[in-house]
């Protein structure tokens, strides 16, 4: 029904256009001859032509509207600077171009968003695995290099304490007290979870260790004493007495000597441990952060382009 109505309306408009152009003498000779033939045989068409002609005649017969006043310009207009700029060219291409750009930006945004959601839905955070390797790769740099003696101590510890026990959070030990240590359960894990010490850091622990692992300076009763005795001690023994607390009093000679560690490395290690979060993720979240930035940028771009396209279409339609 609607289609029939539309078709009839279209035919009526075409007929009116033909009749209107006929009234103005704008038809070609062939069109005019055909229309005259139709008018001769179609009384309804003649009625339409007559009605159209009547309407046009009335409009043409309208009296001129009386002007309310003169519209002459004041002489002061001459002093006004006249803009010498050229007329702004109509940017007919702007609206279609902006519309296409909006479509592209929206499509990219949807693709990126869908990819992110799919990957994160399939296996947790899409970039979580990528965030871990830098930590593991970085950990050896931060860790102390164990000496052969410390490896022996680790082996002894593993023999004596097979089961892993949770490590309590490190607390400060008042200076002057006898430092105590806790044997790390998973001493083989180089990348310890947050709040836990690396085996190298807890190397001074191991109360049950009976044999001194190192001669002379390393055989001193406590690391604190060793630190007081030797100028290089703080760098070699790490901060075990201050961190490794657990209520177990170390046996004299349990402190083993480890490879020398520079002061900067030690401070970095301590800072990392105290923060409770490793430095690795700072570089590991970069891809995820980048992904977010891309999503937000694409979304904002699509939105901005859409607004610009709407403005361009409206501006283009505004010019008659």
């Amino acid at each position, binding site marked *: 029904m609607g289609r029939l109505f539309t078709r009839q309306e279209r035919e009526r408009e075409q007929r009116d256009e033909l009749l209107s152009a006929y009234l103005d003498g704008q038809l070609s000779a062939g069109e005019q001859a055909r229309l005259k033939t139709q008018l001769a045989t179609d009384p309804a068409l003649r009625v339409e032509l007559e009605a159209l002609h009547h309407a046009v005649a009335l409009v043409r017969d309208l009296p001129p509207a009386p002007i309310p006043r003169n519209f002459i310009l004041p002489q002061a*207009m001459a002093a006004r600077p006249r803009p010498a700029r050229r007329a702004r060219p109509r940017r007919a291409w702007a609206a279609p171009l902006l519309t296409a750009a909006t479509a592209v930006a929206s499509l990219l945004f949807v693709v990126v968003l869908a990819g992110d959601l799919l990957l994160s839905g399939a296996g947790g955070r899409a970039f979580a695995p990528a965030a871990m390797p830098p930590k593991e790769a970085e950990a050896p740099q931060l860790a102390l290099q164990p000496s052969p003696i410390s490896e022996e101590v680790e082996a002894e510890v593993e023999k004596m304490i097979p089961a892993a026990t949770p490590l309590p959070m490190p607390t400060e030990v008042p200076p002057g007290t006898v430092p105590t240590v806790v044997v790390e359960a998973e001493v083989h894990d180089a990348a310890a979870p947050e709040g836990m010490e690396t085996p190298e850091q807890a190397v001074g622990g191991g109360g049950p260790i009976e044999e001194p692992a190192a001669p002379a300076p390393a055989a001193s009763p406590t690391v604190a004493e060793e630190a007081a005795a030797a100028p290089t001690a703080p760098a070699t023994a790490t901060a075990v007495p201050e961190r490794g607390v657990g209520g177990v009093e170390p046996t004299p000679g349990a402190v083993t000597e480890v490879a020398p560690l520079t002061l900067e490395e030690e401070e970095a290690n301590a800072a990392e441990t105290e923060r409770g979060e490793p430095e690795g993720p700072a570089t590991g979240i970069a891809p995820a952060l980048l992904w977010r930035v891309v999503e937000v940028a694409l979304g904002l771009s699509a939105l901005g382009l859409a607004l610009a396209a709407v403005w361009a279409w409206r501006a283009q339609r505004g010019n008659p």
Partner: protein
Amino acid sequence: MDEVSLIAAARQGRVDAFNDLVLAYQQQVYNLAYRILGDPASAADATQEAFISAFQSIARFRGGSLKSYLMRIVANGCYNELRRRKRRPATSFEDFGEVDEEANPALINGHEGPEEYAERQEMARVIQAGIETLPPDQRITLVLSDVQGLSYQEIAEATDVPLGTVRSRLARARGKLRDYLRIHGELLPAQYRLE
């Protein structure tokens, strides 16, 4: 001074020369604005703004028909005004009264009596009401063609559309006005009705 000389003087910044052109065209420009907008106050504003704009941009006029140039400027102004009205409709104070905008006894022709004059004014009101039912683009095209007498080519230049668009817009406008008069034809004075 002829029109070309007046235009040249106006381009030199001479307001008096441009005012001669204003006096020559103000009736046509105002009539166009009035038939498009339908009320004298808005038509006067549009006319004044059109002349100011024409003077300020006369340096860009590269010859041709000054009438078409002026019609283009005022038609654009009227189109913008119609769009503004569509966005923010408002009722004029004149709509509340019985102000006869067409009436001007000074325009009575020597051979036209008061009764004929009144009937003609009544016809003008009916036709103006029919014109105001048209969409802006069709309204402007109809007025430019059948009130101002511009050719298809001049209308195309004035409205910046192709000739085919002018033809179709004009046909639609005339067809709608014909349909309007079929419905409201009894409002016309007897001598203006279609037998």
